[in-house]
């Protein structure tokens, strides 16, 4: 019999973390994701699996604890929300530069600055275009349900270790806080052995392992950067994830992820009642972004409305993908406001169909 | 009576000529060369075969770890 639980998105990610065999969680409280660490400490994962949970003195400390633990080959994660993730950017750049696998969860809220504790999707640029300094990418996954919050944890670890790259789950306060039914996978065992590059103590059979992102020799450092870019190319080729909802026989599409994608599903129903043939293209991997797939669907459309809880960030990637073939506009709310399905339909009519 | 005698071997090319060892030697038997090594540093050397007791003082203060010390009792 399938066993479902009713849970908040934040709790689901925490439970999934234990079940995925996470070795360590390092975090710092921030709304709207504090339930992640609260759930973890309540669950006594040190007894369930031996998982370590530590509340750090800041997000700066948590991301650097993550660096140390990931550098020693363990399966580790942190979670935070927008301002906290901003504080972590230096560490994230170092993690990417040292090629360390780990999971970073951003349950995003509106900004800029202290902004609001209500949901937002204005961290898209930060998550997908670098965020910190240097030429690097995170793999960014955007769940749109509590179930996906849970499912993406082990998926994120698999990708992280496959590519030696940090992975971010970019969620938002709405999905973090809402309750839905969720079904969990079985308990995975924690890793028994570490990858060969991990710093676990130098044995006589090998040279010292060094975890660093520094190289003062420009030629060698350029070669390293080229290697990184090759890795990113491979990820772009092989790891694109997306979903098309009600996309057969349509004239228009919404492109939206996370909370916005959920609202757009309702907008599709409303629009169809009025005879407007619209579907939803939902990028699941925000990086790598499904450029090719968005470009392909654009061939049979008259227009696309990109819907985000932001002033328009992902829309830039949608436009790149569409490359001028059809009209692409953005509709979004900010400051923690969430659009109704009706206003999205109205925006579609005004900005795309009638515009 | 047995006497303790020592000697030091300075890795000349790695010596940076800092002279820290010179002042550390209790019998003052280390001098700096007038010629320089490939890096352009004057290097340390033992100036008196009878003065070194092999106490290792010079070696343990050498920041670059370039001194090796030998010691033996001689009749």
């Amino acid at each position: 019999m399938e066993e479902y639980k009713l849970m908040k998105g934040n709790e689901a990610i925490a439970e999934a973390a234990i079940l995925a065999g996470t070795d360590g969680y390092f975090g710092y409280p921030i709304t709207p994701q504090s339930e992640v660490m609260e759930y973890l400490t309540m669950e006594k994962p040190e007894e369930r699996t031996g998982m370590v949970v530590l509340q750090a003195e800041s997000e700066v400390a948590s991301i650097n604890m993550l660096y140390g633990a990931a550098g020693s080959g363990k399966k580790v994660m942190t979670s935070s929300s927008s301002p906290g993730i901003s504080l972590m950017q230096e560490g994230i750049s170092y993690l990417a530069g040292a090629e360390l696998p780990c999971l970073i969860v951003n349950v995003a809220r509106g900004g800029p600055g202290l902004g609001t504790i209500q949901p937002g999707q204005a961290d898209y640029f930060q998550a997908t275009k670098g965020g910190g300094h240097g030429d690097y990418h995170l793999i960014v996954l955007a769940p749109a349900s509590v179930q996906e919050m849970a499912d993406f944890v082990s998926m994120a670890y698999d990708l992280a270790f496959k590519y030696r790259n940090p992975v971010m789950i970019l969620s938002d306060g709405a999905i973090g806080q809402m309750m839905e039914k969720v079904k969990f996978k079985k308990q995975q065992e924690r890793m028994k052995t570490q990858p060969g590059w991990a710093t676990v103590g130098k044995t006589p059979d090998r040279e010292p392992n060094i975890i660093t992102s520094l190289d003062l020799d420009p030629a060698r450092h350029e070669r390293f950067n080229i290697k990184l870019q090759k890795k990113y190319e491979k990820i772009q080729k092989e790891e694109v994830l997306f979903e098309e909802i009600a996309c057969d026989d349509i004239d228009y599409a919404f492109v939206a992820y996370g909370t916005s994608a959920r609202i757009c599903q309702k907008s599709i129903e409303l629009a169809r009642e009025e005879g407007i043939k619209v579907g939803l293209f939902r990028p699941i991997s925000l990086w790598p972004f499904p450029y090719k797939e968005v470009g392909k669907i654009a061939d049979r459309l008259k227009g696309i409305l990109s819907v985000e809880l932001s002033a328009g960030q992902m829309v830039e990637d949608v436009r790149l993908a569409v490359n001028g073939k059809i009209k692409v506009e953005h509709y979004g709310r900010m400051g923690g406001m969430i659009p109704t399905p009706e206003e999205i339909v109205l925006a579609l009519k005004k900005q795309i169909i009638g515009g | 009576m047995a006497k303790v005698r020592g000697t030091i071997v300075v890795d000349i090319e790695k010596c940076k000529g800092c002279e820290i060892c010179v002042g550390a030697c209790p019998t003052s038997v280390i001098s700096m060369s007038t010629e320089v090594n490939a890096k352009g540093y004057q290097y340390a050397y033992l100036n008196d075969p009878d003065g070194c007791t092999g106490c290792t003082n010079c070696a343990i203060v050498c920041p670059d770890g370039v001194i090796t010390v030998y010691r033996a009792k001689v009749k």
Partner: protein
Amino acid sequence: MADQILNKELIKPENLVYKKTKILNDNVMHYCPGCGHGTAHRLIAEVIEEMDIQSDVIGIAPVGCSVLMYNYFNIDMQEASHGRAPAVATGVKRLWPDKTVFTYQGDGDLAAIGTAETIHACNRGENITIFFINNGIYGMTGGQMAPTTLEGMKSSTTPYGRNIAMMGNPLKITELVAQLPGTCYVTRQAVHTPSSVRKTKKAIRKALEYQKKNIGTSFIEVVSNCNSGWKMPPVQANEWMEENMFPFFQLGDIKVPEED
């Protein structure tokens, strides 16, 4: 003359009394002539060899002059971002409680940008060892004022000497961490003379042994020179250090475990 090795007959394996440890490799260190970093590195390496813990030790390098220290050690190491070594070490140690984990940090790294990480790692009593090299200056970036720059001391950003009213006080962070219940052993040492080297080495040994006992953070400050930053030849810098640094940064144990 200077090239000649005297007393060649003594050079036999059985007479060997001092040789550089195998825990350091043969790379020439990039430090300036006479810099205490080299000595501090060597002492840590010697203790690792003597305790036979090479395969159990993980070192965390800082940002600063010793940013490339992993190029000289035959041990696994991680390079932390500026000031975060205690957090990085915490991450390693929490997941590998049986390993020996240490950080090696300068004054800017540990006592300015990394103050929060230092204080909180010490306050949690992380079972790590922190080596803190205090030369009162930012060496790598060209000799700017550090949190430990003495009153009146000249640096490239205090060209007329550190003015307390304007630039604040030099920070005795070692006394500060000694106040925290999480630290078990806190001491201040030096590496410029044979006797100070011997004391520091003993302190390093103790610190790493305490780490094995899981009784909290062990913290060793080494007051050292920065000949280039201070603009003095090495021997003179060491004299200046004795006359000026030691009265303010007094050498000796500040905190020892109760059992001792």
